[in-house]
């Protein structure tokens, strides 16, 4: 067989899930098996901060079986990701170690932003038309039990992403208080509750952007999509159709919901709140079409693996999304965009030229690019000590697609751009941070005047020197002076001395 079998394991807050995928070049990714085992890790973590020994025991047993099943399918690769329950457990390291020792499984804890990012990959993996759709303003809304993530795409790239504390569980809790109210009053109250969160968001981020399409994902959406439009599961539907659907749900009793959707009572009681939430988002945004693709984290993992093994080619540039997110953040903090653009050119130019000396890859290049974009965002808060402010802003902002570790690399790179580098304080990845800082500092010095004087400069390594030659004809004193200052650190890191050359034409 030409393709590969991929086994994805999700260690979630309520369930352990195993997905077996068949990925064949040129074909849509196919889910062959999906096995779920309910285990409320979240309850442990959120109550005591730790995962109890009993749960670890159960988890290891089930994961062991998962591994066996994956082997049964002769999976080419088996990956396990853990999300919030494990992420927030204080004893997660020892738990992961236990899992590794007992099942041979190396579990990776992923951050919220990585998790959401995988969801986009899953959506993109589901429909080849995704790229076309997001030419027009499209919001993807990932609705969870405790909160939801709204991300906006426009003109083929991600504009922003935000997490709102609006989840189905919370809404249901609220609804149960309203049992006695009349139907009209109830829907009015739901509206108010949702708007309470949604309107400020709209004001701050949406402004007068018009959203044409809505994509809903998340646990409950899987169930909701089943009853959506008979026979048209996973298809686009109009906003009006969705509204009718939501109203039909409202008229159904609990037991009818269980029958129609074939779900357990606890899920049935969440169907209407989910639909109401979606409906309110629909009304607020005024979107015309809706899609509930029914994807989960496992699908995203499969898409990611497919991309890595080059069996799946996305038309959509996901790294572009991460950059776009960073760029939008820079804009929000009123950074000087021409300066940033010049810096990007210089920094990436140096990075590419120095490839043989730093040994870093594409992912690190991406981090550098993000660091460039965000290097001065702290100035928005205060000009003095702006590096500390930038550090804090970055650490407090979710950047889609970045793990927590990567985000801290970016934040540190930005911090040490202006602050004396300290190996001890730069965290676990101090070497990476140092390498990127050296490049960023040098690049920053090259546009000291913020006038992009060195645009189009040639950057090459020649005879043990990093030669930057510019054909700028004006005065480069400021840049040169700054450049000289950064030389030593650069040499300290790479053992290569940068040289700035100004080519002058003979008149």
């Amino acid at each position, binding site marked *: *067989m030409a*393709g590969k*079998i991929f086994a994805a394991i999700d260690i979630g807050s309520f*369930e352990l899930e195993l997905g077996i995928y*068949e990925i*064949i070049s040129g*074909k849509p990714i*196919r889910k*062959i*098996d*999906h*096995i*779920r*085992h*309910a285990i409320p890790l979240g309850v442990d973590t959120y109550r005591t901060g730790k995962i109890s020994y009993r749960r670890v025991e159960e988890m290891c047993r089930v994961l062991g*079986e998962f591994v*066996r*099943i994956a*082997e*049964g*399918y*002769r999976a080419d690769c088996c990956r396990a990701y853990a999300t919030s329950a494990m992420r927030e457990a204080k004893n997660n390291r020892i738990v992961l170690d236990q899992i590794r020792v007992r099942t041979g499984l190396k579990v990776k804890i992923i951050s919220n932003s990585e998790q959401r990012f995988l969801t986009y990959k899953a959506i993109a993996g589901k429909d080849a038309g995704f790229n076309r759709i997001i030419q027009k303003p499209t919001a993807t809304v990932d609705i969870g039990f405790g909160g939801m993530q709204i991300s906006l795409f426009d003109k083929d790239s991600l504009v922003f992403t935000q997490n709102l504390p609006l989840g189905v569980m919370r809404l249901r809790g609220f609804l149960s208080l309203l049992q006695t109210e009349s139907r009209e009053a109830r829907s009015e109250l739901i509206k108010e509750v949702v708007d309470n969160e949604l309107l400020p968001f709209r004001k701050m981020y949406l402004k007068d952007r018009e959203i044409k399409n809505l994509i809903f994902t998340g646990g409950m959406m*899987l*169930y909701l999509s*089943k009853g959506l439009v008979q026979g048209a599961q996973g298809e686009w539907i109009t906003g009006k159709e969705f509204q009718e659907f939501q109203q039909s749900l409202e008229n159904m009793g609990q037991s009818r919901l269980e*029958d129609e959707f*074939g779900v*357990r009572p606890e899920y049935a009681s969440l169907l209407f709140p989910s639909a109401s939430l979606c409906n309110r988002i629909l009304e607020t945004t005024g979107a015309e079409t809706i899609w509930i693709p029914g994807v989960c984290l496992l699908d995203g993992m499969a898409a990611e693996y497919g991309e890595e093994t080059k069996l799946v080619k996305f038309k959509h540039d996901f790294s572009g999304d991460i950059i776009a997110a960073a760029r939008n953040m820079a804009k929000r903090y009123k950074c000087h965009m021409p300066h940033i653009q010049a810096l990007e050119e210089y920094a990436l130019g140096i990075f590419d030229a120095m490839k043989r000396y730093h040994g870093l890859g594409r992912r690190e290049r991406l981090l550098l690019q993000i660091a460039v974009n965000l290097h001065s965002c702290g100035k928005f808060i205060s000009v003095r000590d702006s590096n500390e402010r930038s550090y804090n802003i970055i650490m407090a902002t979710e950047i889609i697609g970045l793990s927590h570790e990567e985000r801290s690399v970016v934040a540190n790179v930005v911090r040490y751009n202006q602050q004396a580098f300290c190996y001890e304080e730069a965290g676990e990845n101090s070497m990476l941070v140092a390498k990127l800082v050296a490049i960023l500092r040098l690049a920053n010095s090259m546009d000291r005047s913020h006038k992009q004087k060195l645009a189009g400069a040639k950057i090459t390594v020649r005879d043990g020197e990093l030669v930057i030659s510019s054909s700028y004809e004006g005065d480069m004193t400021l840049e040169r002076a700054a450049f000289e200052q950064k030389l030593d650190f650069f040499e300290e890191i790479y053992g290569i001395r940068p040289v700035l050359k100004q080519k002058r034409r003979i008149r």
Partner: protein
Amino acid sequence: MAAEEIYTNPKNYVNRELSWLEFNYRVLSEARDKSIPLFERLKFLSITASNLDEFFMVRVASLKDMVHAKYSKPDIAGLKPEQQLEKIGEKTHDLVSLQYSTYSRSLLPALKQQGLVIMMNHEELNDQEGEYVDRYFQREVYPVLTPMAVDSSRPFPLIRNKTLNIAALVQKKDGDGELDFAMVQVPGVLPRFVEIPGENGERKVILLEEIIERNIQSLFLNYDIVTAHPFRIMRNADFNIDEEEAEDLLVEIQKQLKKRQWGEVIRLEIDEKVDKRLLKILKRELKLENNDIFFINGPLDLTFLMKMYGLKGFDSLKEPKYEPQRVPALMNDDDIFTNIRKGDIFLHHPYMTFDPVVDFIQKASKDPDVLAIKQTLYRVSGNSPIVAALAAAADNGKQVSVLVELKARFDEENNINWAKMLEKAGCHVIYGLVGLKTHSKITLVVRREEDGIRRYVHLGTGNYNDSTAKLYTDCGIMTCNPAIGEDATAVFNMLSGYSEPLGWNKLVLAPLWLRGRLLKMIRREKEYAEAGKPAHIIAKMNSLCDKEVIAALYEASCAGVKIELIVRGICCLKAGVPGLSENISVRSIVGTFLEHSRIFYFESGGRPELYMASADWMPRNLDKRVEIMFPVEDEKIKEQVLHILQVQLEDNRKAHVLQPDGSYEKPDLRGKMKVCSQEQFCQEAEAAVRAELAKQEPENRRTFIPAEAQNSK
């Protein structure tokens, strides 16, 4: 009476035990049917006897348990356990006397006419025969007997369940004339009857207990035998396993099996001419009530007639043996997987052979591309080729998961052995589910092919048992439909203890979804009827006794839905009752093969839906078992399956029609073409093979083809 009350009023239901006895009467009527070959009639009589044994061990026993436990909840027909026992008592006594009058008044004379004499009493033997019999006794029987006498120093012995024994009153030769009890078990290891060399081509057989009785004096040399009579007891065999407590199901069942020998005695069968004093002792020692005693005029335990059927030399008195036919869709050189890929394959056993199912698993066990085989096993035959193939598959490195249902009644011992063997071979064996019996019949083969993973599924209405597949009529489908494959995977995930899938594509499972789905479909027919659209239900099953389902059927009938039921066994529904079930007809087909398939047809407003299932419409199937109902969607197969229903509805030779008064009658044959569905299916299966062979012949052949003997493969 309000409309809804009619549907649920106990008056409108039949007690299931009484309905079951009706069924046994129907089987008995086959034994009485002179148009059936004589030896086949022996077989039917034997079946009524073994049926009745099981009925006592399980049903009567559990009713007795209820009485002991002072449980007095009325059943579906409003009868309390005590009342039920009373009615069952009456009816079974009648049944038994009919059994024996059939035996001695009808079958024995007929056999004699055909030259086979069954000696009723050893006293009838002439000298020469007596000598032969005595020699046989000395040589073969005597060494394995264990005579037991009861006196003050020896307690009353344990009498084993279902064994045949001879009880005697004995008197010490030099004693004071006091009578003692003595007994000897008729050994089960020896054949129940012995053929005596006869004269003039007449053949004679005598029953083992007669031989022992004749020689009983030699067992108790110090005693005089006052009287001796065979007797047989039945014990309460229904056991409940406390699964939550039982740590290891396997060990627990083994323990319970031993206990079965000790259950309460619930029936005594004894010669009607028994000595009062002997009976009194038995009654006292076995703690019996008068109602539990069956006085028999003839040999006890008629199941020996099944062995008698095997007597050589009476082929003209037997139905010619039917050879299951090949499946046309598989009559080519392609392997089973390729054939399934061409389209769904329908199997109708025993008209078609069960080999494809065995072949499917055997091929899968050897095929290098097969990744996994998963199967549910309920009742497996001895030396099952399927079990062997599964073990081989595990050996070949396939992932093999087998759910072995240990709780299949009376098969526990058998199942434990298979389970252990499979586990040793490296299969992942699941020993059933706590609180549920796994009754579904499903096999999944996962295969990695050129264009990706493909799943092959076999779904059936009958067990994976190659020997019963020759006797039970069952249906099955082999498919590689991805929607069904996906569901099958989910079924096995659930059976392994994982969460239910987000949704099902095609399959409907009990205990979670099947009941709701059936009710929904019945009610939908009712809605169609009310809307003036065609509404029609045809359902074939073994038993119908679920109150909710029956009430829904009554309601549908009142709304004008035409309901035709083909229910072989128990039917708690009353058919053709004005104002309740005028539109419902029920027929039961009892024939050479045991009707076992479950097929449900719903008109669905002109878009007919057809399903097959492993489940009857009984509470235990719908609530306490894992069952699967699957749709038949391939148009050609749909036609075939519908044809089965139609022919069975036309059957007028083996069908009995349920009357409004609860009795069953054979339809009036006058002026009608005789239809025997089972015979017709046999012929059709043969014709299909011939047609397929003809199709494969080149058209302009220039050679002659000598006709072959029929039934040769």
